[in-house]
């Protein structure tokens, strides 16, 4: 049995909250650099330079890369051999609260009915998955809603098949146009149930940008959808060129014989994510 203290969890989440807002991870920076190198439109190339420069300023000057420092989704992998001394969920919320307060991050969470800001950026959305062994991992994904709002979910009939699913993904991204700040990382969940599809679409954003699915048939879907999006899409910030998306990540789960859920979670170029293993 391994013991993890509540305070260590709070500290880890707080550090991730501040770091995520200011320091983009190498995976997204490399993807933006690669996009810049293959970009054909001079304006889009120039805008990609501006976005890379922005990431550089954010990191050096400690100004958030984007003012929308997001609503936070936290994925916890909790090994069955691990005991948390204290309250796991409260420790995470306190990490988010203190990170946003002390890190000068924007508080963007409000009541959905009254629209009153909670003033603390909590609550975060927390998912805990139990795993065998002693692993204890926290993944932190703060997400702005310019991109989140362009996401979608459709319960397709099985007769639509994968071609129908691919059409829906492409259509969702192209319809979003400039709103979600492309170039995008597109998270897709195919199968499962209504909520499982949405969960997969969000969680698959944690995969390093552009790493293909381990399933060959799924990797082919990813590649084809990405090519179609960049063919039809509106380009960097909707200003043209061949980089509407940097990557399409697809996760699947067995589904009901009568069902084909497809969820598309759209992530912007300000793809902030951190992970820690305690």
């Amino acid at each position, binding site marked *: 049995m391994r013991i993890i203290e509540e305070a260590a969890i709070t500290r880890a989440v707080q550090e991730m909250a501040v770091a995520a807002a200011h320091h983009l991870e190498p995976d997204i920076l490399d993807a933006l650099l690669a996009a810049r190198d293959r970009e054909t439109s001079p304006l889009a190339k120039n805008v990609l330079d501006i976005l890379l*420069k922005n990431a550089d300023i954010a990191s050096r000057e400690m*100004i958030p890369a984007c*003012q929308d420092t997001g609503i936070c989704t936290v994925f916890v992998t909790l090994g069955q051999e691990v005991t948390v001394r204290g309250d796991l969920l409260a420790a995470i919320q306190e990490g988010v609260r203190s990170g946003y307060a002390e890190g000068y991050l924007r508080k963007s969470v409000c009541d959905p009915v009254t629209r009153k800001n909670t003033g603390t950026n909590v609550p975060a959305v927390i998912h805990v998955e139990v795993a065998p062994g002693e692993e204890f991992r926290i993944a932190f994904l703060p997400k702005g809603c310019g991109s989140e709002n362009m996401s979608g979910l459709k319960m397709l009939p099985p007769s639509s098949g994968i071609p129908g699913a691919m059409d829906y993904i492409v259509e969702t991204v192209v319809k979003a146009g400039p709103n979600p700040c492309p170039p995008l990382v597109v998270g897709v969940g195919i199968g499962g149930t209504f909520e499982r599809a949405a969960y997969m679409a969000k969680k698959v954003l944690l995969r390093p940008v552009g790493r293909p699915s381990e399933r060959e048939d799924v990797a082919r879907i990813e590649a084809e959808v990405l090519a179609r999006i960049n063919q039809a899409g509106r380009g960097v*910030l*909707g200003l043209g060129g061949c980089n509407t998306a940097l990557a399409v990540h697809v996760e699947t789960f067995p589904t009901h014989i009568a069902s084909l859920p497809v969820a598309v979670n759209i992530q912007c170029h300000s793809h902030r994510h951190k992970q820690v293993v305690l």
Partner: protein
Amino acid sequence: MSLLRAPIDFADFKPVTLPLADDAAAELRAGDLIFLTGTLYTGRDQTHRRLCALLDEGRELPVDLRGQLLYYVGPSPPRPGRVIGAAGPTTSYRMDAYTPRLLDLGLKATLGKGARSLPVREAMRQHGAVYFAAFGGAGALLSQCIKAVDLVAFEDAGPEAMFRFEVCDFPAVVINDVAGRDFYEEIAAQKG
């Protein structure tokens, strides 16, 4: 100015002074790259809701919007010694429901990201108003173009309060011009 020293090609950006004069607005064309310098006001969802509530009640607005530019932004808080945190644009369509009413009052320009609704575009055309897109997700870089910040109204709305900014060489793209052209639509048409 740090932006100008950056290895970014800003050669095509032409200077535009705020508040925007009628003839200066009329000269802008969809697709122009511009550097905004001068005074602007900010507002996003809550500010718009409250401005329109004041109008509903027949009360005065906290500022005279005639001739002004409204920037859709909810900045992050400043670190000590700074005037502001990150301050890039938010998505404009959420303001579409309110914008024609503010254009009727003489609002001259808006600055955000993403396309506007047809009623907003029609109202802009009628009033000789223009819409610009700032670079979405470039909040740190744009922060450095904001030289002074004053709170104007709705402090309790937090990041959604209304501020007055002094900006210098704030980069943007003209999306909708006074002739009714729409740059996003033109890009989309090229894509077929």
